[in-house]
């Protein structure tokens, strides 16, 4: 089973919820895999505090031109939809940051002058903390394309057991890549106008992908009831509410997890797992 924790926007508490869920789940299951797919700024490791056990470089395929075979016909640059290969007065030049690794240029090259080589975009760090395996994607600074790295992180999902995905913010390619195969999505929001605006976008994404989802409202009490009203109107279950508690903000600021420090919140996290487990079972 895979649960993804997502939100229209960052800063709503995705990492807080994903890491605390992983901790609670590790009391119940033999193994929990937490996949930090927020590869631009992965923060789960700060809270999980595991021991690093391995790392893996992630490469994508980019074209390389063998100039001795190139006839300067320009077919590769004409074909490339991403302007990643440009023929400047003859010999093509590859802009590797723009390349989506579709392989089209090497397919259209008649003299077979293009082959693909590895280009590093980031790294996957593997941490172990008790029964939790944390798998974190970390995009290299200056590397624009995160979806291939997210895809590489997700290959380490353990289909037999419980996986929790800490998704990137937004509604475009990175978040789609992170949540597309999840069994259930928790959308994290706040009871404010920004929170509602971004939640509506996240709901649209989840519906478009035909996913089962529920809402978690963080910092309840800091704003108003517009998010609650929206969920009621749209018939979206609210699976978790975390109050606006300065103690939580302070724990977060020091990189500490809620559970273990504020045991009064334990029960509500346990219920989240139970409820999701039941929904998924009923559907199968």
């Amino acid at each position: 089973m895979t649960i993804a924790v997502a939100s229209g926007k960052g800063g709503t508490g995705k990492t807080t919820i994903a890491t605390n869920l992983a901790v609670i789940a590790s009391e119940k299951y033999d193994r929990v895999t937490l996949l930090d797919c927020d590869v631009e700024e992965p923060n789960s490791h700060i809270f999980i505090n595991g021991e690093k056990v391995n790392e893996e470089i992630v490469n994508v395929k980019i074209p390389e031109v063998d100039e001795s075979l190139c006839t300067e016909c320009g077919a590769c640059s004409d074909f490339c939809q991403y302007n990643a290969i440009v023929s400047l007065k003859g010999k093509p030049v590859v802009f590797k940051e723009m390349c989506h690794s579709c392989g089209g240029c090497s397919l259209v090259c008649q003299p077979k002058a293009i082959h693909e080589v590895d280009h590093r975009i980031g790294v996957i760090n593997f941490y172990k903390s008790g029964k939790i395996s944390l798998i974190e994607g970390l995009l290299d600074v200056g590397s624009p394309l995160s979806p291939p790295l997210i895809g590489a992180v997700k290959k380490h999902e353990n289909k037999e057991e419980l996986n929790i995905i800490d998704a990137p913010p937004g509604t475009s390619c990175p978040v789609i890549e992170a949540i597309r195969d999840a069994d259930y999505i928790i959308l994290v929001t706040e009871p404010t106008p920004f929170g509602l605006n971004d939640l509506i976008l996240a709901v649209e994404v989840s519906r478009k992908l035909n996913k089962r989802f529920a809402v978690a409202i963080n910092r309840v009490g800091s704003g108003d009831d517009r998010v609650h009203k929206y969920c009621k109107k749209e018939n979206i279950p609210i699976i978790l509410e975390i109050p606006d508690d300065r103690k939580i903000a302070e724990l977060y600021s020091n990189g500490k997890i809620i559970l273990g420090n504020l045991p009064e919140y334990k029960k509500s996290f346990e219920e989240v797992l139970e409820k999701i487990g039941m929904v998924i079972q009923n559907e199968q």
Partner: protein
Amino acid sequence: MNNKPREIVVISGKGGTGKTSISASLAYLSKDCIVADCDVDAADLYLLLNPISIEKHEFYSGHIAKINQEKCIGCSTCKNLCRFDAIKEDSNGKFSVEPTSCEGCKVCVEFCPEKAIDFPDRLCGEWMKSETRVGFMVHAKLGIAAENSGKLVSLIRSEARKLAQEKGKNLIIIDGPPGIGCPVIASITGATDVLVVTEPTISGIHDLERVVSLANHFRIKPYVAINKFDLNLEITEKIEKIAKELKAQVIGKIRYDKLVTQSQIEAKTIVESNIPSAQDIIDMWEKLKAN
């Protein structure tokens, strides 16, 4: 005169640090700028500035593959060549393109032996020019699951520059996207200043280092604003030290202020509300202006 206007981009490693509240406040204080919302994935600035649209345009970017079922013979060439796993085969042996996976690379279109795949332009969202109480605004709404937010960001910035030229404004304030990926890179390349908003948290430090090194990578002067600095003074001190090492000036420290949410609910910028943190932003603006 062809003076390039000053372009201040407000970014943050992480979302939710207060970029939008701060950019709206700066725009309000400047009284004389073009404001642009480049956080196209989750554009929120409109909630504070209440823009009245004067122009609306569809935004097309790239293409999307579409299999013509009448011509398709089910040879699966497309499926085998697609690197994005975007071609699905149903139980009747029919092939179709999953639009949220298609990256518009054209490989399937080019190599379909039956020429059965169309390649129409892809509608990715819309962008608007609007009037607000702080001046003209350029903003957009990206379609759900649409691609190319980087291109949309570039488009908004170039429209904001055109508008600045037209209206004779020498300042553009941009509410940027979070992260360090494609949309952020598109919003800062060629800008004059970057204002990185951060919070005194361990993750804040981590994100700040990455985003400042991104600004340095593109040779843009980074300033740092520490929002909610009094939530953890120890980490605030650490951030100031790290910023110094990274050659990024801490230009503002904004206190933790519960009333910010209230002014958000009232659709006001912080500096329009008479709340404690407003003064901190005014002080920061004065320093920014002078630099």
